[in-house]
């Protein structure tokens, strides 16, 4: 497949510290993390407080993102939703990575036959659209918040597994691992102390981008009515609830979606900045 390898789409032109985009992304990222950790800091309202006399209020000074069909404050719901959405994204990424490390190590360190089998398996799964993989898992296990995390995690696993295997192979063949072998270090020690840390360093960027991707996938599932159910303040569930009223109250879907877009964009910008700093000269 040498002719058909996908080129790296990312690039960086200037140093990140001098670009306004980097600082904007950092600021927005910090804001979302703050909302996830201490939502009360950003809003005084309760995300579940119902005021039927204030339903479908358009955005105003009192309700910057408007109110929903039950008069709940959309801004408060977006702020309180950050925690759960972030948790789903991080949980799914951790799950995907754990599976990927097992598969990647099997492929990278096992014998030739084992490598062939796991590589085929990874490639087969990688070729499959992630959202569909997630939908199959939800169909099998039933619809719940837990399945949502599992589904997104498994869907993101093949991409990570490919990287882990490639990195493990590269590190294993490197001079410093050979040097350790010559020094008589045991394979377990070499694996834990040398191969894993070195294989993971390039993955750091990928993980930053991957969390954003996981949040988008989870929100897409939520939008379809799968996963966390309304009225829980979670971004995907909010999108789903707003879908029914989109023609009369545009703010119900617009603001949660906009926050998701801005947050994933911020993660992309930050991930590229990390790459630019850790890999001087840029790697293509």
């Amino acid at each position, binding site marked *: *497949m*040498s*002719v*058909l390898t*996908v*080129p790296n*789409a990312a*690039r960086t032109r200037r140093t990140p510290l001098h670009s306004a985009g980097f600082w904007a992304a950092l600021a927005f990222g910090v804001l979302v993390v703050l909302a996830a950790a201490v939502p009360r800091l950003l809003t005084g309202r309760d995300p579940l407080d119902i005021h039927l006399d204030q339903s479908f209020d358009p955005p105003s000074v009192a309700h910057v993102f408007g109110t929903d069909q039950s008069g709940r404050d959309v801004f408060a719901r977006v702020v309180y939703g950050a925690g759960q959405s972030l948790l789903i994204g991080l949980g799914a990424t951790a799950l995907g990575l754990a599976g990927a490390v097992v598969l990647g190590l099997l492929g990278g360190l096992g014998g030739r036959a084992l490598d062939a089998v796991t590589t*085929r*398996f990874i490639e*087969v799964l990688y*070729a*499959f*659209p*992630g*959202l*569909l993989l997630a*939908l*199959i*898992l*939800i*169909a*099998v*296990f*039933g*619809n719940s918040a837990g399945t949502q995390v599992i589904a997104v995690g498994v869907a993101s696993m093949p991409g990570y597994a490919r990287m882990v295997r490639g990195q493990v192979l590269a590190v294993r063949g490197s001079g410093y691992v050979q040097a350790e072998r010559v020094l008589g270090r045991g394979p377990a020690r070499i694996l834990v102390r040398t191969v894993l840390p070195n294989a993971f360093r390039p993955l750091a960027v990928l993980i930053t981008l991957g969390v954003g991707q996981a949040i*988008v996938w989870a*929100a*897409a599932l939520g*939008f*379809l*009515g*799968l996963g966390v159910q309304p009225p829980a303040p979670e971004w995907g569930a909010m*999108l789903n609830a707003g*879908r029914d009223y*989109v*023609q009369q109250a*545009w703010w119900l*879907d*617009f603001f949660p*979606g*906009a926050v*998701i*877009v801005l947050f*994933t*964009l911020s993660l*992309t910008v930050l991930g590229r900045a990390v790459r630019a700093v850790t890999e001087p000269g840029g790697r293509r």
Partner: protein
Amino acid sequence: MNGSVRLRVLRRLAEAVLLLLVVGTIVFFLEHLVPGDPARAILGGASAHPSPQALAAVRHEYGFDRPLLAQYGSFLAGLLRLDFGESYTLKQSVLSAIGGQLGSTLALTLTALGIAWVLSVVSTLAGAGRNGWWARIGAGVEVIAAALPQFWLGVVLLLVFAVRLHWLPVIGTGATGLVLPAFTLGIPLAGFLGQVTRDEFDAKLKQPFVLSARARGMSEAGVRARHVLRHAALPGITLSGWGLGALISGAVIAEVVFARQGIGQLLVTAVNSQDLPLVIGITFVVALVYVVANLLTDLAYVAVDPRLRTTIGASKA
């Protein structure tokens, strides 16, 4: 078509069969090993309370009381004939349920792919390799476009062009109903293709053949459109096969946003009611479409890059 290309086609097909078997097997065993009773899904899902006799009758009718391996055997035999059995909820054959919806989804995804290519080529030809505001804005727009999730972009397009401006119908059939969903899928893909093509374009502009074309007195636009674009399009073509898979995922979302018929809507309904034969059937058909798309991508690659006609057999995996 020469021998090496034919070999490549055969390998793709073998990969396709493998993909389908692996996915089918995993889903089959998950279905039968996970707690939960398909007979309940058939009799109305989690909320229904069927009698034990009714459950036993359904189990017998669908063969759930047979040994697992025997069920697996007939499942695989069915797959080879594209017979996915009967849908639990629609009470009709899975294949005919899919057949009725596939055309609409294919029309949507192919239109979206066309839109993505036109947008990214125009953006690349205009901006790549040039310094200045336009190029920088173009690159920024591509990054943002690639990051737009369909569930948000679709809603925004719907709100602006259908609800506010009334240019297009909110829910439409035919050509006017296709415009908004197709742009919903096409714009993010265009951003993605544009980034890749632009990178490649920038790199190829520095190649000696560009200098020689300029030395022959070719215009700047000519150099860009006739020489550099051909090189820069290659990775984009590779990504189109992948892109069609992504578009079908996206079609699930777009069809729900615009209440449009298609296998995406069908899949969401099937997932919600745990109608596994229907889910498996749709998955298979999507995988088939995906494999065919990748096959066409390989052939398009050979058509655009004449060098591959001789080397593709030599550079085997």
